[in-house]
């Protein structure tokens, strides 16, 4: 009844009614905008969740690939396999007295650095 009375005001009171209506519309728009923002936010969270799950799965897959490659490399370089291949290629152990251990001289190790201009001044 109050609302009816409010809306049934005389033409002289019309200005105040419009102000109230405009306020209500503005509030409604604000509420809708907030709702849209919230939905947008939720959507973004969802999308990020999917991306995290996807990237996590990719990371796990890469870890797994790395493990498999490590495994493969270890199997390929296993001592018994190397020995078998070496034997097939006609290789034999060298007699100890025919082994000469060559140690890199400090001068030789300094050469590449000097050539590249990286020699440290002392």
């Amino acid at each position, binding site marked *: *009844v109050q*609302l*009816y009375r409010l809306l*049934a005001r*005389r033409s002289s009171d019309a200005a105040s009614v419009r102000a109230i209506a405009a306020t209500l519309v503005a509030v409604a728009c604000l509420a809708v905008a907030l709702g849209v923002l919230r939905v947008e936010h939720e959507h973004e969270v*969802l999308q990020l*969740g*999917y991306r*995290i*799950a996807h990237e*996590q799965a990719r990371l796990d897959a890469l*870890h*797994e690939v790395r*493990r*498999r490659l*490590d*495994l*493969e490399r*270890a*199997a390929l*370089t*296993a*001592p*018994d396999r190397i*020995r078998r291949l070496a034997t097939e290629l006609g290789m034999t*152990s*060298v*007699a*100890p*007295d*025919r*082994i*000469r*251990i060559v140690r890199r001289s400090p001068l030789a190790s300094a050469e590449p650095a000097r050539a590249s201009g990286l020699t440290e001044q002392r």
Partner: protein
Amino acid sequence: MTEAQIGAQRASGIPRAAKIRAIIAGAVLSLAIVGVGYRAWLLQIGDAEHYRTLAERQHEIRFAIPAPRGDILDANRQPLAISADVDSIWASPREVRDVTATAERLAQLLPGDAAAYEAKLGSSHRFVWLARHVAPDVAAAVRAAKLPGIDIAREPRRWYPARSLAGPVLGGADVDGRGIDGVEKALDVLLAGKGGEATALRDARGHAMFEDGSRAEPGATVQLTLDRTIEAIAEDAIADAVVSHQARSGVAVVLDVATSQVLALASYPTFDPNTAGAGSSARDRAVTDAYEAGSVMKVFSVAIALDAGAVTADTPIDVTTPPYRFIHDVEHDTVLTVGGVVKRSSNVGAAKIALRLGRLPLYAGLQRFGFGTRTGIELPGEQSGMLRSGKTWREIELATIAYGYGLTVTPLQAAAGLAAIGNGGVYRSPRIVARVTDASGATLYTPAPEPHRVIAAETAAVMKTILASVFDKGRDGGTAKDLDVPGFRCGGKTGTAHKYDPVTHQYANDRYLSSFAGLAPIDAPRIAVVVMVDEPSGGDYYGGKVAGPVFGVIASQVLRYLGVPGQSGLQASGLQAGSASHPEAH
């Protein structure tokens, strides 16, 4: 109605009936709004918990994240054990439509009979494993069959890329990734890691979206001191010896003299831990088996006597008159120096030296060398060996213990004792784990055994000279005179022990333990090697002929691998293992 109200109605121009309808409509609308609001309140607030639970049940999935088991690496960080995912077949029995037909189809695709699968599929469980760790082609076949209620999961499996290499040392892990023997068992807590649990949202298409949870903590990485190349050398050498001499088993231990770190622990028979159940007859004999080692123990009894000042290296010992009738020598010597007792492996001489030394000093010395107690190596099932208190020894026991009867030692204990002599008289407990690190690289465990002096440095130097003399050539040479280590000068001691028969309670005349303990190169020892071959039955049984050549092969190849320069002028044409002309050494 008052005059004023009639006037107002006239002014607004709204009839009374319309007003009433408007009021009623307003009231109805208000009630509807209140109703909707109440319902919304109930949904969002009043019954929120109930509906949240329902939604979570529908959209949320919780799952355990298994922790990847840590790697086991060798001294050069080469993988010895590593985990990688494989396929396993599982079923959700409630979703299986035709149990019998599905079981029959599975029996065609997987190992096992239809009846077993039918029993599993007929169960009331929500989840049952059908086959774990199947080959990729088998998994592909099951996937292609598209059987309702049957699915494939990826789960980690333990792999040992070098196959049987160091099999008894590594031990193996079961299908659930639990260590069952060896390093896998001893360090299971560290290797296993900590599993995580995650909660994810599932959309209408079933896609998972990570929401929250604890990540799995991968198991720690265990780096061993074991070098896989040295292990391969030792395993090949001991396998050749066991096969060629038709022995029951064999073991070879290689230690770094300076640190007592284990470079190789080779046992034969061995097993491939990739094959489940293959290790039932094999074990890590270097730590699980204790032997009456025989003459190799003379090294320690003589070293203790020298260190105690009971004798000197040049003290003459009459070896023609044994202290007990049953003690005799293979060689027919008359008088030997203390060094000569070791060189010629005289039981009579060793017994007489021990009798001069006395019970308690010998017992204390053997204890200092680590005999009678576990070394504490990071392996399960280590034996302490048997060394009774010196106070209880009778004189005859004192005599026999001096040459290796009446006490038992593990090959690892013998190697650690020998390494102490090579290390200038300083003993370090042998270790096989170099370090344990977590996923971030932080060190969790580094063994730091306390070194202690067992004999004086001077005594150790004398002992090295004596051990080198065992390789002396000629008629009066040592018991390893026919043994050549190509390119290197070594020192060592042979051993041939009669085995005790628990049935007859006597020492068997036809069952022996052939052994050899040596340091290489003897001038500046890098490695200590102990070789034991159990019950050789191919004709030869003396330590110098059976175990000695194994030492020669290991020492020569390992020193070359370690970059130790060989000496020209020493025999380099190969090992003369089969040409021993005087093998009667003990």
